[in-house]
Structures are given as structure tokens and as C-alpha cells.
């Protein structure tokens, strides 16, 4: 099977409210998808469900990763199989140092010898002994997430708004790291503004609207339509053509 990730007819809810409706998405090895959509359309829910968050309940459908049904698997098992997620808003954990988490990430990715190199590359030395994400600036939180992913070296990346809340200069750095991470790998990037697409090449764009996939197409064309007409009109046009 060429598909590294297959999402089949996925229906997901939280607190009895349905958020994702019959989502189908096939991603092949080496492909990267950009995921667009307005707030509350289900983008983050999709990534969190793929990662195995117990907050979300799967009513129907399944998730296949590298040919294995992972729908019921625990998060750490999925991660050991090669899934990696970058949070938009990672939680602040008092008393747990970034250094400690990096050790776990490096052990997982077999990159123990790379820790120092990556830390230096991202200029993160001063954050190593800080409680993870506590008092981190927007840019620092993003870099910390990317540093962890670099060390975990996952086969499939899920990046939730890597370009939100950071200045243009930082986006360039973040883009560069994402390109490294995606080299020969596959992934999904959620982007609200599309800024990151100036630095990262993606193969397809997907629009999520009200919990459904409204269309799949050329990411730049989709972005142009969204910028010109807004999501509602974009989704309407897309759905009309489906």
C-alpha cells in the first residue's frame, strides 16, 4: 500500500457534539497536505484524533497508519510507530524541564547524539532548564515543538499552525526546519494564514468546513480563492463542484 495514512469515513465528537463528519483522506508516502479552514471547522480535532486524544470520541470510521489500523491504539504506541505532532498551543507543565522531554524525544528517535547540535541550531540553550512552555514566547514555543520533532524524527508530521503568533523572520526559520523535517517524509500542515506556504512546499490543499472535507486541490489556488472570497464562499464553490 502506498498510502502512509488512510482516514476512512471518520466521525468524531466531543461531549456528545459531532465535530468531524465522514472524513476521508488518503496521504501517500512523500506527500504533504495543507489543511485550511475557518476556526472551529475541525482541523485541530482531526490532528488530535489521529494522535489518539481521549478527549475525542470516534463514533465511526478508522485510521490506518502504514497499513495498520491504529484507531484503538494508545497515543504513545502511535508515536512509536512514527507519528509526530506539533502543537499550536502546547500545555505548560510546571516542574518538567525541556531538557528532560528532549531526552525522551531523542531516545525515541535514536538521535541522542544530535541533541546539542539541534539545540544550538535553534538557539535554545537558554530554555533547556526552564519548565516546558512556562513563560515561553510564541516563537520559543514553536521552536521548542520543532526541536522535539527533530529529535523524534517521525515519519509522518502533523503541524498545527506553525505560523501563528510568530513574526515573519521567525516564520522563515520555522519554514526551514519544517522543510528539513519533511525531507522524504509525509505530513499535514494546518495553516490559517498560509504564511508558511511561502517557505514550505506542499502537494495538496484541503479545505475543512463545518467538520467535512469541502475540497482537495492545488494549495495555492485554494489560498487565493479563500483570500478573495472567504471560506464560506470557497466551501460553497468547492461543494458545488464536488
Amino acid at each position, binding site marked *: 500500500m502506498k498510502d502512509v495514512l488512510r482516514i476512512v469515513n471518520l466521525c468524531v465528537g466531543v461531549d456528545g457534539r459531532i465535530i468531524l463528519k465522514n472524513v476521508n483522506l488518503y496521504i501517500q508516502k512523500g506527500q504533504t497536505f495543507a489543511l485550511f479552514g475557518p476556526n472551529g471547522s475541525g482541523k485541530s480535532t482531526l490532528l488530535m484524533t489521529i494522535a489518539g486524544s481521549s*478527549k475525542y470520541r470516534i463514533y465511526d470510521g478508522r485510521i490506518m497508519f502504514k497499513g495498520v489500523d491504529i484507531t484503538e491504539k494508545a497515543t504513545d504506541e502511535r*508515536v512509536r510507530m512514527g507519528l509526530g505532532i506539533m502543537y499550536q498551543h502546547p*500545555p505548560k507543565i510546571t*516542574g518538567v*524541564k525541556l531538557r528532560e*522531554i528532549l531526552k525522551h524525544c531523542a531516545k525515541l528517535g535514536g538521535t541522542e547524539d544530535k541533541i546539542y547540535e539541534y539545540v544550538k541550531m535553534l538557539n535554545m540553550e537558554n530554555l533547556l532548564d526552564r519548565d516546558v512552555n512556562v513563560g515561553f514566547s510564541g516563537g520559543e514555543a514553536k521552536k521548542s515543538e520543532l526541536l522535539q520533532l527533530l529529535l523524534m524524527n517521525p515519519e509522518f508530521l502533523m503541524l498545527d499552525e506553525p505560523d501563528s503568533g510568530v513574526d515573519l523572520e521567525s516564520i522563515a526559520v520555522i519554514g526551514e526546519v519544517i522543510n528539513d523535517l519533511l525531507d522524504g517524509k509525509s505530513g499535514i500542515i494546518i495553516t490559517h494564514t498560509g504564511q508558511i506556504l511561502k517557505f514550505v512546499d506542499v502537494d495538496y490543499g484541503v479545505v475543512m468546513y463545518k467538520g467535512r472535507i469541502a475540497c482537495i486541490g492545488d494549495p495555492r489556488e485554494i489560498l487565493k480563492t479563500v483570500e478573495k472570497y472567504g471560506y464560506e464562499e470557497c466551501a460553497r464553490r468547492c461543494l458545488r463542484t464536488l
Partner: protein
Amino acid sequence: MSEDFVDLRKVGIERDPSKRSASFMMVDESPEVGFSRGVEILSTREAIERYEWLEDYSWRLVEGEGDYDGYFIRVPRNVKVEFPVEACLLLKMAKSQKVHNIVIAEENSELNLITGCTSERLSGLHLGMSEFYIKRNAKVTFTMIHNWKRGNEVLPKTGIRVEENGVFISNYILLSPVKVVKACPVAYLERNSRAFFGSIIVGFEDSEIDIGNVVYLNGEGSSAEIVSRSISRGGKVFSRGHIIGNAENVKGHLECKGMIIGNGVIHAIPELEARNPNVDLSHEAAIGKIAEDEIFYLMTRGLSRDEATSLIIRGFMDIEVKGLPEVLKREIDRAIELVEKALV
């Protein structure tokens, strides 16, 4: 003496002259000085017999009377004791152990004291009364590790006087299930002196723990910080703190954080009392369970649920103590590891 039934290393007791400046051991009511260098260490009874002036120190900071034994430690003026001094109080055969300790750090001296209290008996009462005198410019770091058995009752009383520019740093760790621990050390701070009280308490099922600190900021410019981390796993934990600002430009901060694992009770009682308008007193208190989103986050980094829980509990208990010597930090880390193993 056979202390083979309990692991004294768990409460920080090494009895190794290459790691400690002095070693004291009290089994039931029999004291014994193992070795000492650079610091005077005697049994309290012996010290009171030898030094008449000790009357001015005995039963002055804690209420009480009577002729109990315990440890007397005195660091001479200008002496900085390099390795920690250790004192072990072991409840072995007796139904109760009453202890009277006196610690004097003379002017400009420095002492690190580790006290380990433990029991071989499944039940029994430990009553420790301790008086600490920290003279001008002296610094005492006091680490107390408790490892009791389910039926033990522990009711210590402690008084601390910190003179001008003196520093007192205290860390208390309770490792094990116990029937009752009730302790509320009282500190009296003079001009520009400083005190820190850190405590890490775990309340297992059927344990009732009531721990607090009272600090009187009596001298101008004095400051105190009380930081507590309480975990309840079925037990009842009262976490108290009371800072009284009596003088100009004093500063006090209280931080009580509680975590309930499964069931249990945590009652945080932070109190601030200002008796002077120019004081800076503050507190923060929070109680909750382990956040699921934090566990999930760590699981997305490849940790199992148990590993993630363990790391979060470990982080919760990790109090940053300024001025803590590396060797004591290691003892505390080791004690926390034991707590962590017992919890997850």
C-alpha cells in the same frame, strides 16, 4: 545496634566520614555520637551538664520542660562546616521516643544538617522538640526526611530564631504512609534575616497530616518564603502557612500547591497578617488533579501514560530552593524518587 530492618539511606543517613562531617544516632531514647569533625556534637543531656550557659537556650524557643535527650550541635564562630552533619532518630523497641534537640550556629558560621527519622515499629509515638539558634551572619540548611510506618504518630515542635543577616533554609519531606503527623515550626526573624521553608508531603490512605509553618518577620528588612507541595492519595492533608509582618520593609510569600491522585482531602490554609503598613506579603494556593492534557502531551513525545504521570508528579514536587548545597539537592532528589515510585 542493629538498624538492618530499616534502610537509613532512605532518610539521608550515610554514616560515612567521607560524606558527612558528623554523625549522630538516637535509637529510642539512647543517643550515640558516631564521629565528628569541625563541629561540636553531643547528646543534649551531656551538653546541658557540661555547659551552664545552655540554660539560656534550653526550652526558650519551644514550650516545654524536662530532661530529654537528643542532639546538641554547635558550630563555632566563623566555621563553615564543609560536609553535612547527619542525625538519625530511630524508633525501634520503645512505644514512644521523646527527643530534645538544640542547634546553635554561632556568628558567621555555616551548617548543613540532615535529619532522618524512621521507625522499625509498626506503631509508636515520636515527639521531637527542636530549638535552632542562627546567630548573626550565620547560615543553616536543615533537611528533614521522614519515613514512618502506618501506625506511627509524629508530633514535633520546632522553634527557630534567626538573628541579623542570618539565613535558615528548611526542607521537609514525608515519604511514607503514617497515622498522624502534626508539625508547625515557628520562626522568629530579626533584622535583614531570611528564611525558606519547603515541604513535600504525601498523604497516603489512612494518613492524617497537618503541616505548616509560622514565621514572625520581627526585624526590619527580614523576609520569608513558605513553599509546600502536597499530594493526597487517599489521605487527609492540611497545609498551613502563616506569615506575620511586624516590622518595616519585610517581605513574605506563601505558595501552597496540592494535587489529589484518585481520592483524598487537601485543605490549604494560607494566612497573611500585617501589623505594619510597609510590608509586602503575598500568597498563592492551588489544588487540582493531574491535567489530562499534560499527560497526553507527554504521550505524544513517546512516554507511556505511567511514565508521563510519573514525570508530572516529579515536576510537581520539584521545589526550587535557592542556596541549597548540591549534596542536599541529591538527597532530596533521591527522596522524591522514592515518593514517585510509591505513587505511580
